[in-house]
Every structure is written in C-alpha cells, then in structure tokens.
C-alpha cells in the first residue's frame, strides 16, 4: 500500500485547518413584496447592479438578480418560481454576478439561459464558467473583419457578404424566412467544414419551433457544431432577458480561445419586449413605445461583444446574426432603427417578395453589408459587381416590363437578364451552396451565357450546370473552393460548361 502515515497526518491536519473559517457574516435583507417575477427587498444597501441574491423562502431557495436600486428598496428579478417565496423571506447577498457554464462540453447540447440542460442527455461536464455580462473587447484587441463567413446563400454571399466578427441584422415581417437564413448559415458551416461553432439563441420562441430546428440541425449533422440556448414564450421574462447574454458568454469562450463562433439571436424584438416587461414592473419610467430609456444600451452592449480579435489576442471571432421582427414592414419603429444603427448592415426580407415565390425574399435594394466586402472571396467579388449592376438596372426598368412590345432592344435585354438573375438567386431552404458552385452559376447568369435559357427553366439549367461541373470539372471546383480565387483558365472552363448547358436548354425550346 503506497501511503505514508506522516504525509496523511499533515494533509489531514491541513484539511481540518481549512475547515476552520471565520465568523459567517452575511449581509441580509427582507422581501417586502413579491409578484409578476419581481421581488422588492428591504436592506442590502451594499448590493450592486446586476448582483445575485439568494432568497430563502418557505418553498426553498430562489436566485434573483438586482436590476433596480432605489433609496428605500431594491427591485430584483426572480430566476425561479415566485410561489416558493413570500413577503418576509430572508435575502442573502452573494457578492457574485450571474455566471454560466462555457466550453467545448456545451457543443451539441440544448441548454437554458442558466446553462441547465434541456435535452435530457444528462448533466453538463463543463470545466469553466463565465459571467454573462462582460465588457466588449477594446479597440487595441480588435482587427478589421477580413475573413468571410459563408452563408451558402447565393444572394447573401454575392451581394451582402458577411465577414467573421461582423454583426449583420436579419430583419423582416413574420413568416418571411428570417430564421431559415440563420439556420441555413449554421448548416453551411457544417457542410463547408468551416470550423465555426454556432450558437442558436431562441428568445421567447414556441418550443415546437425550437424542437423542429434542433431536429433539423441533428439531421444535417450540424448540431455537433452547435449550442442551442432555448427559452420559450412560457418562460419568465427574466430568462428571456438573460438568454442572449448567456449565449454570448458561451460564444466568447471560443472567440477568446482563437476560434471562430457564430451566434444567432432569434429574436431581439422579443428580447426587448421581455426587458420592457421587467422595466415596467420595476417601475422604471417608460419612454418611446413604453420601452425604458436604456433599451438602446441593452442591445448595443450585447452586440459590441461580437468582434474579430487581433492576432495578438488569438485572432478568434464572434459573428452575430441578430434577428428583428417588424410589424407591417415598418423598419422605422423604435427597436428596428436601434438595431439597424448598431449593426454592420442588414438583410431585409420583404413579404411581397416571399409571396411572389422569390425565396429567400431578400430586398437587394434595402439590404447592405457595411464591412463584409473586405472579407468577400475574390472569386465571388469579381462577379458580384456585375450582378449588383444588372439587378439595379432591372429594378429600375421592371415597372416598364408590361410595356415590353414598345421597348427598345437594349431595355428588353436588361429586363430579361434581370428576370433570369432573379430566378438564379432563388434558393430552396436547407440547400446552401459552396463558393465554387455559386461562382459557376453567377458567372453563367451575369456573363449572358444563360440569356438563351427560358426563364422558367433557369433552375433546371442551374442544376444541369452544377451536375456537369461536378462530373467533368470537379478539380476546378475544388481549386476555387480551396483558394477562393478564379483564374482566367478556370473562368473559361466554367463559362464553356455554362454555354453548353444553355445550348441544350435553348435547343429543347426550339
């Protein structure tokens, strides 16, 4: 037996010594009122903003955090069942702010904003925790966005490119495909093997929707690279308020360890509603649309934590895709304008386009990426200029399309090109495309190679082109995917394949 009694003796005495603690001095307060997920506390004069307290009620202990510090009392937001505590319950100050588990152990799991598992796969084995509220990286520890984050959606990667570390808003009315874009982006990270860890934060969503998303991610094999932080509409406002901050803390772990992470906040409108509810119950003065005065700061401090770190800081990144739901297409409402001004661009989805069958229903004119251009793949960038120009001209002329018989040949040509480009940019859900595939299809459409293909057969022609390229030019596709560049020879190969396919389709027509 490998044991020394002398060593055992000293270790035992040391352990006993550590057990001897000083007097257990605790700052205590008293619950004076409780209801609607809020409790008012007497005492705890030293309590800090956002500090955690423990309330010992007759039904057990409930955690809460302080959000309203007044002269006579403190308003705290409960994180547990309010029925477990009563007026008169003792409140203890913990001296800590809320922390959640972080680390690779969370990947593939579905958790709530406090890091408690919701997927029935047993307890988390996370070795680290991180405070949910942290300061954003400062100027010195950042660098400009310079690496693309491919969404696999042609319209976005070509015209509204997103870079790693960017904040790109997805905005639109209900049922316009906002979540679909976010989920496709997560799936594309797995398909392209980009190494990006995704975090999907569901804020006040229907649990059936969250279950559907988790199931789809599992089917696609993307859940293995994803953390889902879920709150449902039935959860207390406090949990809905915490969800994006918890998800961000989980994403920051990867950012700070030199990795790339993507976080989707679905959606920040509901987050603002939850914060408005808490603020009104805490008797904070209501401002525009009854939101409290600091609702801008609510989102700006959250989104500032998404960044591309400098090489000295490890070069990691956290890319944010916040989602905002508009009412009746009103982007000038309070929360949409706030988040538009905070983010580095927006993808605007239009109901009309959606019901015309143009999906993703991206409004090219109103969507913009302010910093992603610097990170765009050179191969796509080369083609994107022509695409934007063709579509802009088409938008101007589209109104005259009904008078086609009276138009000159050049105008007609532009309208026809625009109609074909619009067809090409339609993309089914859960079918993200690789860079080379996008380049091949866009090149064929913008160069005029597909001008002879009937509009209604454009998608078939696109499929035929991709099939041909995978069969005959797989090496070219692989090289473009690898380098992100398009040489003159590769361009010729792609164009020649495009022309052959177009010829087959135009012969079919005749």
């Amino acid at each position, binding site marked *: 037996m490998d044991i020394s009694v002398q060593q055992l003796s000293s270790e035992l005495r040391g352990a006993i010594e550590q057990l001897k603690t000083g007097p257990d001095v605790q700052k*205590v307060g008293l619950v004076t009122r409780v209801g609607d997920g809020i409790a008012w506390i007497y*005492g705890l004069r030293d309590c800090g903003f956002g500090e955690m307290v423990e309330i010992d009620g007759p039904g057990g202990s409930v955690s809460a955090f302080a959000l309203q510090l007044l002269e*006579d009392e403190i308003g705290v937001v409960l994180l547990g069942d309010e029925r477990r505590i009563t007026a008169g319950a003792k409140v203890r100050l913990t001296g800590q702010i809320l922390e959640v588990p972080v680390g690779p152990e969370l990947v593939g799991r579905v958790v709530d904003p406090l890091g408690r598992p919701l997927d029935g796969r047993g307890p988390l084995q996370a070795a680290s925790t991180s405070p949910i509220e942290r300061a954003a990286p400062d100027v010195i520890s950042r660098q400009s966005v310079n690496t693309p984050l491919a969404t696999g959606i042609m319209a976005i990667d070509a015209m509204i490119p997103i870079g790693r570390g960017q904040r790109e808003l997805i905005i639109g009315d209900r049922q316009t495909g906002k979540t679909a874009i976010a989920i496709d982006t997560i799936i594309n990270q797995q398909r392209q093997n980009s190494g990006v860890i995704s975090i999907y934060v569901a804020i006040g969503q229907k649990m059936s929707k969250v279950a559907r998303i988790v199931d789809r991610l599992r089917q696609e094999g993307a859940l293995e690279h994803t953390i889902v932080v879920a709150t449902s509409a039935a959860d207390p406002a406090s949990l809905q308020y915490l969800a994006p901050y918890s998800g961000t803390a989980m994403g920051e772990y990867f950012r700070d360890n030199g990795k790339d992470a993507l976080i989707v906040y679905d959606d920040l409108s509901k987050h603002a509603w939850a914060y408005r509810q808490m603020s009104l119950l805490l008797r904070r003065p209501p401002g525009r649309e009854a939101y409290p005065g600091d609702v801008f700061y609510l989102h700006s401090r959250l989104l500032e934590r998404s960044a591309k770190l400098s090489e000295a800081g490890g070069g990691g990144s956290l890319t944010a895709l916040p989602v905002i739901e508009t009412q009746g297409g009103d982007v000038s409402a309070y929360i949409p304008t706030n988040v538009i001004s905070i983010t580095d661009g927006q993808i605007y989805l239009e109901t009309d386009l959606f019901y015309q069958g143009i999906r993703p229903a991206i409004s090219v004119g109103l969507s913009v990426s302010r910093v992603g251009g610097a990170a765009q793949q050179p191969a796509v960038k080369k083609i994107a200029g022509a695409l934007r120009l063709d579509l802009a001209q088409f938008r101007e002329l589209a109104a005259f399309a009904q008078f086609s018989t009276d138009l000159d040949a050049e105008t007609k040509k532009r309208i026809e090109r625009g109609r074909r480009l619009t067809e090409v940019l339609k993309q089914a859900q859960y079918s993200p495309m690789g860079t080379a595939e996008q380049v091949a299809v866009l090149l064929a459409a913008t160069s005029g190679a597909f001008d002879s293909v009937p509009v209604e057969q454009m998608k078939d022609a696109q499929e035929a082109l991709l099939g041909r390229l995978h069969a005959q030019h797989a090496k070219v596709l692989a090289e473009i995917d690898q380098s992100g560049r398009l040489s003159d020879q590769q361009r010729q190969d792609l164009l020649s394949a495009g022309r052959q396919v177009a010829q087959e389709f135009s012969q079919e027509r005749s």
Partner: protein
Amino acid sequence: MRRGSRRQLARTFVALLGRHPLPRLIQALADEVRRCGLAAETDLLLNDIQHELLAQKGYLEAEVVTARPLGEAVMNQVKRLLEDATGAKTVRLNTARDESLLGGLVARTPELEIDLSVKKQLSRLEV
C-alpha cells in the same frame, strides 16, 4: 400615495435626537409617517432608524439568539465581534433562546447576520 423617502425620514430623526425632547420628536415622526403614507412600513422605518443610529452615533442594537444562556465573558466577546464587523462604538445586546441551534449563537442586526451556531456548522457537513 407615497410622497417621501423612508430612509430620509430616519436620517432626519436620528440627526435631531438629543436636540429636542424625545416625546415631541416621536410625535413629529408619527405625523410625518402618516403624511408620507409610510404607516405600513413602520417596521422597516424602525430598521432604518437603527441603521442611522449606527451610522451617525455609532450605536448598535443587536439580537443574540442562543441555545443556552451565555456568560458575561462570552457576551463581551460577541459585543467586540459586532463592533469589529460594523464599526459600532456602543453595542447593546438583546438576548433570545432557540434550542434548535443546538449550541453556539446567532447575532442579528436588521442588515447583518453572524451565524456561529452548531446547527449551521452541521448543515455545512450535509453538503
């Protein structure tokens, strides 16, 4: 309708202590409590007054709960402990009995609790 701050009221009351006759001060305080709509918060007001007594005059009144009666030496030790913990210059102890503590003591002020009971130490061992 509430119109005043409870803590402000306690602060003013304690500041005026010793400068006016106590019955007159108490009457004035009662009038002010009624006027400010703070009658339902009288207990909390008394706690605030205790806090202000400590802050302005260095006077602390605490409750000491024990399982068995304590000797004077231990009481003096408790006083010193409270003086160290709160910065009070004068400590007055009110005693109470609770046999469920098993041994040791618990000292309480409105905003502080010092638990040196055997019950607390045993509950730690449970974890």
